[in-house]
């Protein structure tokens, strides 16, 4: 594996170089606020397409509010257009642009989530390949950036990741002090990008310092849960009707915030956007937390209570993904915890399950 160092202050230049190479560059940026200093204002950091190296927030702040999901699995994806002509219908393919893209400043948890989405949308899943996802995926390179300051919602170490993990990364950056970054070229795609940045990359990296730095940051994580026993406990269908689901989930209000910010949530809906005799069939984001998500035409709803919908989400992350796709369903980014308006905390479920799994005879907590 090739390594190098890069001056932290040169990231803006990196972006400019990538732009000069006709690449689409996506980086964390701060969004404008009505009243920057007002009591209600929060810094809004999001991954956004950038047109210059100025104003980027790579390595600053923690996690952008959106993940990188929307750049692979679009919020709104026209699948094809159609036109009615009398009794005939013509299906017209929609031209999609799949520009060669570099996403820079991706945190390790987000990078790790790509594999999970890929397992759903690739042909490995029942032989059906979502061409829109895979086309984008194949043209996207991820430059990741190790975390330096996790917050109280981060729990990546609880799901077998770490703040400096290079999983899912093409080119990985880690701060090693003195305003320098340790650069690891991980994949061929990463190498291609590194070539574009050659003039800024210097010599060899510093593997030892990088690992030490990573370990130091890992130490800072406060929210640590034992996820090991969770899957086995969930596999027991008897536990599907455990009292904890309702107890913990009754405050859930069924907004989809957790699923929409989640880097691995992939549920979607297919609808027609019609006007007169023309229209598009589009794929749009959907959420398993919505009450009509599983509602049958007959009126029957398998997940008729909100806690059942959250139960499905938890199962999806910790049982369905690992069982069906052999990829983790949760990367510990903590977005769902930050986003939840009622402080429904997935790690509380994890702790509760772990507790139940390791103390099978314990009296049910009230």
């Amino acid at each position, binding site marked *: 594996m090739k390594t190098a160092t890069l001056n932290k202050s040169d990231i803006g230049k990196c972006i400019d170089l990538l732009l000069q190479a006709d690449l689409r560059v996506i980086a964390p940026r701060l969004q404008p606020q009505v009243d920057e200093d007002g009591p209600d204002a929060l810094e809004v950091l999001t991954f956004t397409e950038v047109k210059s190296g100025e104003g980027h927030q790579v390595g600053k702040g923690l996690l952008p509010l959106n993940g990188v999901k929307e750049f692979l699995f679009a919020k709104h994806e026209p*699948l*094809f257009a*159609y036109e*009615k002509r009398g*009794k*005939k*219908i013509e*299906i017209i*393919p929609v031209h999609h642009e799949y520009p060669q893209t570099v996403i820079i400043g991706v945190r390790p948890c987000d990078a790790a989530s790509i594999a999970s989405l890929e397992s*759903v*949308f690739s042909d490995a*899943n*029942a032989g*059906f*390949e*979502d*061409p829109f996802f*895979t*086309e984008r995926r194949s043209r996207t390179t991820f430059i990741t950036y190790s975390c330096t300051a996790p917050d109280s919602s981060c729990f990546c170490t609880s799901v077998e990741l770490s703040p400096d993990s290079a999983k899912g990364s093409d080119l990985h950056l880690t701060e090693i002090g003195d305003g320098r970054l340790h650069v690891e070229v991980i994949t061929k795609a990463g190498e291609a990008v590194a070539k574009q940045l050659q003039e800024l990359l210097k010599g060899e990296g510093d593997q030892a310092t990088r690992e030490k730095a990573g370990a130091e940051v890992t130490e800072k994580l406060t929210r640590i849960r034992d996820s090991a026993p969770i899957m086995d406990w969930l596999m027991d*269908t008897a536990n*599907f*009707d455990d009292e904890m689901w309702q107890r913990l989930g009754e405050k859930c209000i069924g907004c989809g915030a957790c699923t929409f910010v989640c880097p691995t949530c*992939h*549920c*979607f*809906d*297919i*609808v*027609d956007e*019609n006007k007169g*005799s023309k*229209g598009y*069939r589009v*794929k749009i984001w*959907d959420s*398993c937390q919505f009450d009509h*998500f*599983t*509602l*049958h*035409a*007959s009126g*029957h709803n*398998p*997940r008729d209570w909100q806690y*059942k919908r959250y139960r*499905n989400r938890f*199962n*999806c992350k910790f*049982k*369905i993904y690992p*069982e*069906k796709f052999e990829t983790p369903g949760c990367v510990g980014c903590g977005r769902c915890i930050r986003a939840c308006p009622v402080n429904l905390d997935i790690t509380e479920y994890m702790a509760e399950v772990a507790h139940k799994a390791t103390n099978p005879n314990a009296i049910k907590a009230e």
Partner: protein
Amino acid sequence: MSNIYQPDLMTITKVIQEAPGIKTFHLKFQDEEVANNFSFETGQFGEYSAFGAGESTFCIASSPTRPEHIECCFRETGKVTAALANLTEGDTIGFRGPYGNTFPLDDWKGKNLIFIGGGIALPPLRSVIWNCLDLREQDGRFGHISIVYGARSVQDLVYKREIEEWNQMENVTMVKTVDPGGETDDWDGHVGFVPHVLENDFKPDPENTVAIVCGPPIMIKFAFEALERLGFKQEQMVTTMENRMKCGLGKCGRCNIGSVYVCIDGPVFTATQLAALPNDF
């Protein structure tokens, strides 16, 4: 690269009004190459498009032994089905499929079959009923075939002609029923809910018999319970699930029961398989 979400176009060759709000379409592919390459097995389903409204999931209601066209049967309940219901002969619809698994006809060789259905759940059963009847005709591979079918009222019964046809057939027992209050003066069938009629009036013998149940979840539940009381074992009971679906491809994430996706692992399940699934349907 092929677009898995893009349907093939089919022409409606015939429309049959089965019951109030329920229609059957006969469908033919418009593209000959698609038509020639198309095959399906009983139990599979498709995604039918009414362009401008969206897609809806129905089982293929016709039998693969009668491949001249495929049929679908639906009740007008929402946006898509309402748009479909507005279509007439010669109009175009979209079709994706076939998707899902099939009824295990091979496992049923030499056995007696009981088909139990309620309301709009007869169409999925009809495919397998005709398939089995046709195969039995060919090589006598199944034993006695019984059909227990009920609807809310006499007018809500679908496939009324075929019910009579089955009634006339030798080696077929046709048990028809309507919910209490749904009968008419000249109704010659039973009156009562399907599981009740099954258990108390029909009383099938479980010996060397497979029961295929299709209907609303509550009916499946009660029918299974009734069958168990009659001595049927779980492996003798088969059903087809009708969870809400959008993609049919195991991606959109709504038809799952635990880790099982009805669209790719189903829709046909034995009672044994269902019992192993979490209580999420």
